[in-house]
């Protein structure tokens, strides 16, 4: 098992280099001039252009640019933003915790909402409750997140004044409404999964054994049933966390939370190549690492899984 883990970690290294190279190339090969993009509709004086190119190595052959860039990256220096010349490390240090809070709370709310709901739906299989919530959660899943977000802002923020409308000025409380919006939007999948796995587990023989031991229905359900049913659900939640790191773009925009999604949206509009590259690389690696963690988590949760 340990050997497997080490092997997976080592596999990350070539993947890291290949993906960073691809991202680097793709972004730089997109037509258009990132320096011009900073100047809007004005022509750039030649000297200024020369300075920019010097500073960002823009006139070197592309592979040399890549090596220079990777040299910096491996020293944990992601370079500077072309638009504002701010060090990207600073931007990360500010933006990442905000996205983490948003993603973390979303997964938490998702768990708190979807798991009991899935359990209830399994218990009341095929009743109005079950079918009704199936429909409701599907609707939530299909409504585009910005619509949900705007509705929430208008009703819960402005009209009923329960939550702050935007921003991060109220500490952790600012993240509650956006996280709820995300959670209710995606909980359809988790709730259905919980329902399905619980129904599957419900048919398992070992539950019958547990009852035969006189353990009482509550314990049979909680200790024997849920422990098995939760395995796929927990792994899905962990994967959600990884996906949300890059997937909160719309919500961050609607609720004005300056996290990673916010930064990369703006960077794309402004053609700020260094930020785009830096954040993309980070997101790819984060997702890979999270997937590795999820695999390990799965093995830890289910002792039948053995990796060689």
């Amino acid at each position, binding site marked *: 098992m340990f050997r497997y883990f080490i092997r997976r970690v080592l596999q990350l290294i070539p993947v890291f280099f290949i993906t960073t190279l691809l991202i680097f190339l793709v972004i730089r090969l997109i037509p258009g001039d990132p320096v011009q993009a900073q100047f809007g509709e004005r022509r750039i004086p030649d000297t200024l252009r020369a300075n920019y190119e010097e500073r960002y190595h823009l006139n070197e052959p592309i592979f040399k640019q890549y090596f220079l860039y990777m040299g910096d990256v491996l020293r944990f220096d992601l370079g500077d933003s072309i638009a504002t010349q701010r060090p990207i490390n600073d931007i990360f240090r500010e933006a990442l915790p905000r996205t983490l809070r948003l993603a973390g709370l979303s997964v938490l709310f998702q768990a708190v909402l979807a798991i009991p709901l899935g359990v209830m739906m399994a218990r009341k299989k095929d009743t109005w409750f079950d079918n009704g919530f199936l429909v409701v959660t599907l609707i939530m899943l299909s409504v585009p997140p910005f619509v949900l977000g705007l509705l929430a802002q208008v009703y819960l923020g402005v009209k009923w004044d329960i939550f702050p409308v935007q921003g991060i000025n109220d500490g952790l409380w600012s993240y509650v409404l956006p996280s709820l919006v995300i959670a209710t939007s995606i909980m359809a999948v988790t709730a259905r999964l919980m329902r399905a796995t619980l129904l599957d587990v419900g048919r*398992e*023989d*070992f539950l*019958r*054994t*547990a*009852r*035969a*031991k*006189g*353990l*009482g*229905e509550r*314990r049979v359900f909680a200790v*024997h049933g849920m*422990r*098995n049913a939760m*395995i796929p659900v927990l792994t899905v939640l962990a994967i959600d966390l990884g996906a949300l790191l890059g997937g909160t773009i719309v919500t961050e925009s609607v609720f004005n939370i300056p996290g990673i999604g916010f930064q990369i949206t703006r960077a794309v509009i402004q053609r700020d190549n260094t930020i785009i590259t830096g954040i993309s690389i980070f997101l790819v690696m984060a997702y890979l690492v999270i997937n590795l963690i999820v695999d390990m988590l799965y093995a830890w*949760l*289910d*002792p*039948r899984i053995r990796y060689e």
Partner: protein
Amino acid sequence: MTMTDPQFATAPGLDETLLEVQNLTVEFHTEDGVVRAVSDVSWDLQAGETLAILGESGSGKSVSVQAVMGLIPMPPGVIAGGSIRYRGTELVGARPAMLNTIRGVEIAMIFQDPLSALNPVYKVGWQIAESFRVHRGASRRDAKDQAIALMDRVGIPNPAVRARQYPHEFSGGMRQRAMIAMALALDPKVLIADEPTTALDVTVQAQIMDLLKEIQADTKMGLVLITHDLGVVASVADRVLMMYAGRAVETGTADAFYAAPAHPYSQGLMQSVPRLTGPLERLESIPGTPPSVVNLPGGCAFSPRCPYTIDRCRDERPHLRDLPDRDGQSACHRTEELP
């Protein structure tokens, strides 16, 4: 946690009737209709006795003992009639809390496929120890120690190491031993074994049966053995109950049953058992297939396949009647006439 009901604290006297099942009828209400899995079945079990319930798949044998343990899912199952008494206490319609003081404590059950019957995500030792923790309020350490002791008792080598392993790390035979250990944890008075050896190799089968016999000799517990394998039963059972299509069709002592099965179905089964000794013959089988319990024919359920069938058999269902020449009963109109 829950202490055993003091009512059962006393050890059963010899020949005390532990389990008394009378006219048990179990139905399942499905979309396709009402299925009568068990119809009007009666049997009892004494201390120290082994009762074998025989029959094909679908004969209702598993359902009848699951009803004893209250393991029938209700809905869609319903105990439509009859009574089940454990040492005088009625189990049909009992409150779950009461049932839980008996299940696992007084009456224990082991199942056919130990791999699926054990929870894959908990260690084996933990699962055995669970009974101690839940029913006796034992500490984790105590429970663990007792579990290891039990595993040793049932013949699992290296029990301390094995206790920390998971079910999928055990072999088939060892798993069944673990199940037995789990069942025996709280010294039950009755052990119900539902096809305990069906999923095992032949050699392991013998070991498990020996183990069961050995434990029964020690503890004087009653053993109800469900099986379709006549060979297994021969060496172990004291009494036999043969079921067909949800009904009891023959009862008797094991010896008598094996010497001379009375019911045509029992006879057919006996003949179809392949023998290792004797001249090579064509394998005999009972023609036809067991009926679906949804649409039971009127009259005797076995009549379509019975070589001795007469008109009366198709019109009138036979009841269990005492055999003329020995202890036991058979449900056949022509009992007296048959060989």
